[in-house]
């Protein structure tokens, strides 16, 4: 019995492939992709204002609603935040990745790797909670500022319009710091991988041809590592665009895309508009990925 089945598989390898792939494909291909399509279709329905029910007719009025000033502000705010977080993450991540890739070796290298992996895999909520402790009015940042007699600096920062707030945990500065913290490892790892692939011969050749270390870095190492930065930015940008828990816990009351989606589908019951909102990060990420592929970021993943 088993032998004849085995022979059948040998004669017909496509049959085996189909059998292996059937379950997973039904799952991801049908259930998951089907759900995404169902969501997309819902964005072309609209919510009847009087009855509060969803009208199942094709219309673009939900997208017109998306273009209202308040909603565009939500989108702009989220995109600017994602861009700033991405920029800051690449600046903070680069020295860590550079040291790990080009200087650390042996035991230190393993330690560095774990030191990046541990925060990456620690609980998302625990990480956000940690920042709630840090940024609280009575927390460690205020204490350090007071100890160093720099409270005036902190107060000045908090009284700045737009980015300030009643305390760090109710301001854009806080939201920004938490995003930077939780997505930073996603930036470090691709940069490190890209830096490790820069051949040492190239650097030596640059030195032989008379380049100072600074020039070698600027003209050889950095351009070769740049696809790694782009690869990392895919994660930091996409994750910030879709997140709704961080701005809910640390931040002011002005919503970002994720929060808008969450409240629209929940308390407001406006599934069509929520669906239209989710199309925004999908479209932005689509263009972002196309641009990233052109810059060779996928080879660095």
């Amino acid at each position, binding site marked *: 019995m088993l032998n004849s089945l*085995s022979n059948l598989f*040998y004669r017909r390898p496509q049959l*085996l492939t189909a059998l292996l792939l059937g*379950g997973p494909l039904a799952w991801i291909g049908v259930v998951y992709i089907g759900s995404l399509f169902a969501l997309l279709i819902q964005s072309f329905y609209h919510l009847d204002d009087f009855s509060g029910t969803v009208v199942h007719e094709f219309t673009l009025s939900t997208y017109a609603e998306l273009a209202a000033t308040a909603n565009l502000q939500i989108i702009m705010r989220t995109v600017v935040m994602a861009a700033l977080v991405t920029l800051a993450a690449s600046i*903070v991540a680069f*020295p860590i990745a*550079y040291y790990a890739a080009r*200087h650390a070796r042996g035991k230190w290298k393993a330690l560095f790797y774990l030191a990046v992996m541990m925060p990456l895999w620690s609980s998302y909520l625990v*990480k956000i909670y940690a920042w709630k402790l*840090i940024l609280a009015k009575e927390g460690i940042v205020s204490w350090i500022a007071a100890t160093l007699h720099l409270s005036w600096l902190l107060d000045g920062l908090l009284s700045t319009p737009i980015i300030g707030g009643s305390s760090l945990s109710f301001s854009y500065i806080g939201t920004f710091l938490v995003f930077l913290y939780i997505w930073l490892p996603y930036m470090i790892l691709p940069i490190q991988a890209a830096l490790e692939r820069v051949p040492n011969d190239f650097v030596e050749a640059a030195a032989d041809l008379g380049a100072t270390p600074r020039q070698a870095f600027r003209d050889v190492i950095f351009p070769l590592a740049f696809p790694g930065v782009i690869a990392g930015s895919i994660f930091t940008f996409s994750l910030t665009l879709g997140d709704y828990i961080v701005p809910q816990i640390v931040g002011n009351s002005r919503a970002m895309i994720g929060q808008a989606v969450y409240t629209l589908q929940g308390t407001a019951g406006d599934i069509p508009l929520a669906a239209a909102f989710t199309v925004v990060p999908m479209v932005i990420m689509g263009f972002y990925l196309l641009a990233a592929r052109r810059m060779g970021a996928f080879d660095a993943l």
Partner: protein
Amino acid sequence: MRSEAGWGLKLAAGAGIAFLHLPLALIVLYAFTTEEKSFQFPPPGLTLHWFSAAWFDRPDIWPPLWLSLRVAAIATAFALVFGTLAAAALSRARFFGKDQLSLLFILPIALPGIITGIALRSAFDIMNLPFSTLTIILGHATFCIVVVYNNALARFRRLSPSMVEASMDLGANSFQTFRHIVLPQIASALLAGGMLAFALSFDEVIVTTFTAGQQSTLPIWMLQELIRPRQRPVTNVVAIIVIAVTFLPILAAYYFTRQDEHRQG
């Protein structure tokens, strides 16, 4: 040629690593504080009281903890089967649309969690599936499959086909070959993938908020405590438990994948 790092680089790298770890250290410190109502720093005093309070006085912690462990275990088992099957199929066969298909299998991780969450929620609505432990597991399995798939695929690609051929030449059927030749070689990758999937599921909150209905997993319990805190240090105690439950599997996964990188060069 590895020159000594300049002090500027060392300082920047060290500060970055410190930035990544100090917040986690603070979580641990605050579990021992005597201050219950605020996040006062430095803590006015240290106590072990909250550990016993979490154990004895807070029965609301246990059901979410069990639910999370159960969901993570079932979703991981599910992901192990489906992820391995998909990796086996896509690593051995060549067929039309294979590249698109492999892109499809990483989509649940590439798209923001909120999109996966709301898409599954509306699909469950359409299918008239009531929200229950089952829907939580279905949601988690979707991204757990990806983790197992990635780990298994990397290993399948490094398997040498000549060993499988030799086994067949010596008269083994495909089931015997799988049992005695393939499985021992992919076992540690599956173990690593399974552990990562478990940790991911145990910690997941975004997809879960959309598919859980009235039930609370441990991350949802924590989210509620963050929004409406009761005994703040108890939340820290639970946070330490969460760190331990997710961190140990990750350390183990690192150990398993590292070991065979050494072996296979």
